[in-house]
């Protein structure tokens, strides 16, 4: 319904959204948007809907060896925060990434710093910190293979993943 449509509209990075996912409305039961209530859990969503929802979250990119948020990154995070504020049963994992340059251990710490900055921004926009997990992948999970500045720029990023399993369940479903 309108929740999904709204969050799709808010995001420019949803190239992989499957239209069929929109018809499989996860919120048809109408149990959402009651702050603090145990509504339908993330884990109950179908894989297609989960993927569609997850694709709504914009990636955030960074300059070399930096975790500063530029205006574009702040705009993307504003949109991501809006999704999270609309879907209060959703928990996400923020994944911090670095490009391949520099050592593995330094880049793990750098990915952690980027993820932390993103989470701090979301919290500042009203998202409850308990809904945000953080993991750094350093240079271990490049988005694009290869080298060169354009590739490295793609790989210096933070991404969002919907959490599943017990950690991701915000309440239970009978």
């Amino acid at each position: 319904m309108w929740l999904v449509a709204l969050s799709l509209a808010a995001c420019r990075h949803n190239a992989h959204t499957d239209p069929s996912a929109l018809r499989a409305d996860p919120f048809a039961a109408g149990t959402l948007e009651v702050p603090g209530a145990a509504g339908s859990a993330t884990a109950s969503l179908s894989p297609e809907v989960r993927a569609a929802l997850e694709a709504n979250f914009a990636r955030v990119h960074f300059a070399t060896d930096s975790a500063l948020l530029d205006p574009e990154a702040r705009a993307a995070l504003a949109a991501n925060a809006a999704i999270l504020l609309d879907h209060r049963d959703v928990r996400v994992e923020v994944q911090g990434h670095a490009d391949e340059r520099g050592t593995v251990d330094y880049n793990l710490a750098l990915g952690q710093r980027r993820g932390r900055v993103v989470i701090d921004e979301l919290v500042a926009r009203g998202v409850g910190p308990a809904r945000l997990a953080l993991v750094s992948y350093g240079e271990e999970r490049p988005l694009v293979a290869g080298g060169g500045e354009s590739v490295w720029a793609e790989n210096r990023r933070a991404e969002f993943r919907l959490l599943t399993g017990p950690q991701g369940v915000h309440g239970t479903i009978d």
Partner: protein
Amino acid sequence: MTPILLALCQSALAQGIIIDVPGSADIPMAVPKPQLPATEPAALAEEIWSVVFHDLEFSGYFEMQNPSGYVEKGKGVEPGQFDMNAWTLIKTTVLVKTRVYPAGHAACDPGGSKMCADVYVYYVPGSQKLASKRFRSTAEGARQLGHAIANQVLLATTGSPGVFGSRLAAVGTKTGNKEIYLMDLDGHGVTPVTRNGAINLSPAWSPDGSQIAWTSYKKANPDLYVKDLGTGRTRTISNVKGVNTSPDFSPDGTKLALARSVEGDSDVFLVDARTGTEIRRLTSGGGIDVSPDFVPGGADIVFASERSGGSQIYRMPVGGGEATRLTFAGDFNVDPVVSPDGTKVAYVSRSPSGFDVLVADLETKNVTRITQDMGDNEDPTWSPDSKYVVFSSTRTGRSELWISTADGRHQSRLTESGGWTQPAWAPAAP
């Protein structure tokens, strides 16, 4: 060789030493094929010879003379069994003669399963035998026999044994994900340490070589574990939500220094190596603090820190106290590793062309560049004798392990496939 250098060699020989620093690769050496009982096929002797020849070439001390130029026809190895003039003629300085007996041979292990290799090391200008020794091994141990011979040659010519046959831990990707492996220094004998299908990083040896600490995502967070190589058991050392990485064992093996993030950027902690219990937090704030490495003796660590802006190398006491900045050139220096003799620190520095391995002398502060304009060169680890550095390099277009003498003059590739990073040289056998 000039008469002056010859005289130097001869006076040094009084102490049994011809040369003491690898890298010049200018001592002419001949290593003829092993003598083998006439009825035996040559394959075994060829394999051992090949290991010896390549190890000695690899050592960086010798100019290996081309075997096609050898003029000696006889095959005797013992003094008096061959004509030394045949080697004087082609200006050989060190002659390495070997003799191999296959498993169970009457002259080695009659009716048994052992094979033997004898090595004779000669200083040709003085017509002098420097050393001779017999090595025994099982039939499968041909490569190790070769390494033992090469080490004996280095002991006879440099005064300290070589490092051949020693093992590396490293991160490899042949299964498609990063796992920890062990391998011989020459890239042979690859065996897995981890097989969990997750990302595995940053291996570090316990000082007795019995355990490996490393970082793994096997529980979806980069946590730090220690595996006992003897029992195969793994224990969790540090698993705070966040980064747990870059472990290094204290010289007595009881503690681990590591980097982990608790609130903000990663800091350096000291924990119990058996239980993971925190002993002390060594750094706080000041940006990313990572990659601690104990200075021999165990009183100090070196580490990388952003406290002054870009990452630089610092040294601090583990008992508490001020950190001292060690590097000033360059705007990004990380991953310091102190040589086992405590005299030098190898580290990684960003340059316009990529990342390079540098070695700084802790006494003189002189910095030696090991790599330049050769792609990205990272993850230095020292040989137990402090004479070599192994590191990863992308100079061939893929990430491989390379060895260099500590002066950077002589470098060789160890691996024959890509995807290798983060080597850690096993400690010397106790």
